């Protein structure tokens, strides 16, 4: 080291200092990415699943003497002055015309959690929070505890067998209300529940979220039609995209002359995977909906014109558009699989006298089947999360009819459908009460992320497993 000239010494020291610093910055960027991903998933999990947990109801008495009951949602610092304010969900929109209430914490004189507060989920209106006084059924009448037991036993019956009953309710501020039983979906007294009952209630409401249709302008109820629409659209799409994608890949890899043109086509197909999805949506709208759909209407459905049948967005056009969008994914994945098959296998088959068709169907395709499957799963995963093109070609915020029903021809390709991603977007941004919708939006987002992640993980594991198997074969 004595040979180092004196004038390079300072620059070496500076470099040494950088040498120590930059690996840490790089490591921190990995950590930051992981942190963001983890934070996003945790937020979705906690808020999405936590919404279904029966929340404690509080009875609050203000300094002004006013009393109300509700569920505490969050606390925020008061603007321009010290102290916090708390947001309560109070429900009872039919009675008090608002269902949210901001209260400065300093104004609260007393808060309690009485056991007899109940929360009713109702079908035309949203939640009721208050107390149950009595149940009247024809000439019978139950009061107090007996009324609550009668209510839970009535709600356990199927909807069609519930007798005509009236609930006499009273809000925390003392207003009496009559409520027909027919409108009540479920009842809870969360303050009186044990942990086990709460867990049970939680799993029931998760199930209802997955299996019921939306209520109260998408701010309540479940997402079943959206799940159904998403799955149906994705199935249709994969039925369309898989054969065509595989066909194109076989043509490119096995039949076409491997020259410059084929290489250009291959690069072009690969690049189409990077073209924004909205461009495909524009193509779908212009060609499928206005072009093909418009012509179909003129030829076959001219009696219903000017109201369009196929000339407007629908299930068929949405699946076709997404099929086009995911075509490059399937082609690329299948081609990779085909390219990995050793040339010796093909030559061996041909040497034994097989025609090209026999070589393809008996040797090449079975060996490439896993790659095709991977391509299809990746296509499904991409399509399930895609929303932008669907907004142009046929998704609806609230479809009046399901695309599959008992009427001939059972599968209605021209109908609009609901989609989880669009449902999320619409409820979060176009609802009349975004505050009430946000917990459900979290749950929907969690569901969507879970579906997409599970599909992607399946593709990864499948590929990994098959590669290892292939590796032991060779």
């Amino acid at each position, binding site marked *: 080291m004595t040979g180092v000239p004196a004038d390079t010494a300072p620059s070496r020291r500076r470099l040494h200092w950088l040498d120590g610093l930059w690996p*840490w910055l790089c490591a921190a960027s990995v*950590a930051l990415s992981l*942190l963001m991903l983890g934070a996003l998933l945790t937020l979705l999990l906690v808020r999405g699943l936590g919404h279904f947990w029966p929340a404690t109801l509080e009875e609050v008495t203000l300094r002004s003497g006013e009393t109300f009951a509700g569920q505490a949602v969050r606390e925020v610092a008061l603007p321009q002055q010290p102290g916090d304010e708390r947001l309560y969900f109070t429900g009872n929109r039919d009675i008090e015309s608002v269902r949210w209430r901001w209260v400065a914490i300093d104004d609260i004189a007393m808060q309690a959690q009485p056991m007899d507060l109940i929360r009713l989920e109702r079908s035309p209106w949203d939640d009721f929070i208050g107390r149950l006084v009595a149940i009247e059924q024809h000439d019978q009448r139950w009061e107090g505890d007996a009324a609550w037991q009668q209510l839970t036993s009535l709600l356990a019956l199927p909807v069609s067998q519930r007798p005509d009953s009236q609930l006499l309710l009273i809000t925390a501020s003392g207003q009496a209300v009559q409520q027909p039983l027919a409108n009540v979906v479920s009842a809870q007294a969360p303050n009186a529940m044990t942990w086990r009952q709460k867990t049970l209630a939680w799993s029931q409401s998760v199930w209802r979220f997955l299996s019921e249709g939306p209520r109260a302008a998408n701010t309540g109820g479940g997402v079943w039609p959206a799940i159904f629409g998403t799955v149906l659209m994705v199935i249709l799409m994969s039925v369309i995209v898989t054969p065509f994608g595989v066909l194109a890949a076989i043509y490119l890899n096995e039949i076409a002359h491997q020259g410059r043109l084929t290489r250009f086509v291959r690069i072009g197909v690969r690049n189409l995977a990077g073209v924004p999805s909205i461009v495909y949506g524009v193509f779908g709208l212009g060609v499928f909906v206005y072009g093909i759909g418009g012509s179909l209407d003129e030829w076959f459905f001219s009696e219903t014109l000017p109201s369009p049948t196929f000339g407007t967005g629908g299930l068929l056009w949405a699946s076709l558009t997404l099929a086009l969008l995911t*075509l490059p994914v399937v082609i690329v994945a299948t081609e990779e699989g085909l390219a990995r098959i050793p040339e010796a296998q093909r030559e061996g088959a041909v*040497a034994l006298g097989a025609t090209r068709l026999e070589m393809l169907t008996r040797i090449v395709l079975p060996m490439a089947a896993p790659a095709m499957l991977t391509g299809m799963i990746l296509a499904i995963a991409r399509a399930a999360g895609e929303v932008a093109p669907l907004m142009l070609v046929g998704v609806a915020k609230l479809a009046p009819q399901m695309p599959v029903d008992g009427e001939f021809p059972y599968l209605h390709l021209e109908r609009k459908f609901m989609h989880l991603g669009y449902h999320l977007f619409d409820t*979060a941004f176009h609802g009349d009460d975004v505050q009430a919708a946000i917990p459900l939006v979290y749950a929907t987002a969690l569901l*969507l992320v879970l579906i997409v992640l599970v599909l992607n993980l399946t593709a990864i594991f499948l590929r990994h497993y098959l590669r290892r198997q292939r590796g032991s074969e060779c």
Partner: protein
Amino acid sequence: MLCAPWFANDNDMTSPRLTTSRQPLRLLQDRVATGLITAGGVGVLLAILAIGIFLVWETLPLLAIGDALALTTLTPLAWGTLKAALSALLFAIPVALGAAIYSALFMSARLRSRIKPTLEMMEAIPGVVVGFIAGLILAPWVERHLASALVVMIWLPLSAGLAGFCWHLAKTRLRRRLPLCWAGLWLVPWLAFMVTVALWLTPWIEQHWLGGDLRQLLYQRFGMDYATRNALIVGIAMGFAVIPSIYSLAEDALADVPKTLIEGAQALGASRWQALWKVALTAAGPGIFSAVMIGAGRAVGETMIVLMASGNTALLSANPFEGMRSMSASIAIELPEAAPGTQTYHLLILAALVLFIFTFLVNTLAEVVRHRLRRRYRQLGSMS
């Protein structure tokens, strides 16, 4: 390539067991199937080509109208698209490249085989979910705590440096327990802790140095307006979505740099920094360039995140705290209402064409560069 010899000589190779009556049938089947596959393949490729043709065809009527109108309508949208993409890339490029360098050159092989798929999984998270979190959760929070958000952004790299400094001071036993090759993992709680510290300290900093209210200060001193959904939010959200694609490609390029090159440089007396900067980054430069290009293509075309997190106001301002409206979001909002054949319809399709051409060119460039790079690596590998 595969065809001529066996096709022509098939009759000579007939095995005695096959009756001659089945032979023509097999050949016919084969010809028909080949024809069908060719037709299908070419048809699919033509359908893909049709996208470009359709977009060009539908924008032709605009030529008759004249381009002045198109220019005035599309300029704010193009500006919005660029602004959104730039702010996303500003956030994504340093983080993604840093992560790529770390995981290609430092991370232990076992950790790397776990972390890489995890980060690539980020790409699968639907844009609509990221947009919802950004637009409805992050944006209102940042509006109320602007100073905290900015402090966290400055504080995070500093705290990473601080971690490195503490590590160098620490005892050897602790260093062995927390090695650099696992730092990607154990820095996560450290960063989370540092974010908490920053959030806790910010009100005090804001009170003492920033006059109590940063937004007020920005408005009075620089005349900057603040919109709830702005370029900052879009940058973070879309950066989050773009990071995995840049990371994945850049990491591939860096990991493929022949190890002999870096080892050779270090043997000749280069420090690790010099070996990285002068050798690894130079060798993988084209790959990193193509990774950034692919990321840019994705940022330009992303629709749902911009739609949900940008406020959709067509402004021509460079202020990072104001919203914008991008071309893709405009298409998503306006096209369903525009009747086919009207001027708006054609203009929106022109916007789609611009997006199509831009992303196609950028991706082709990236692909070509990557091809060249792969060839160069093969040469380098064969030399050693």
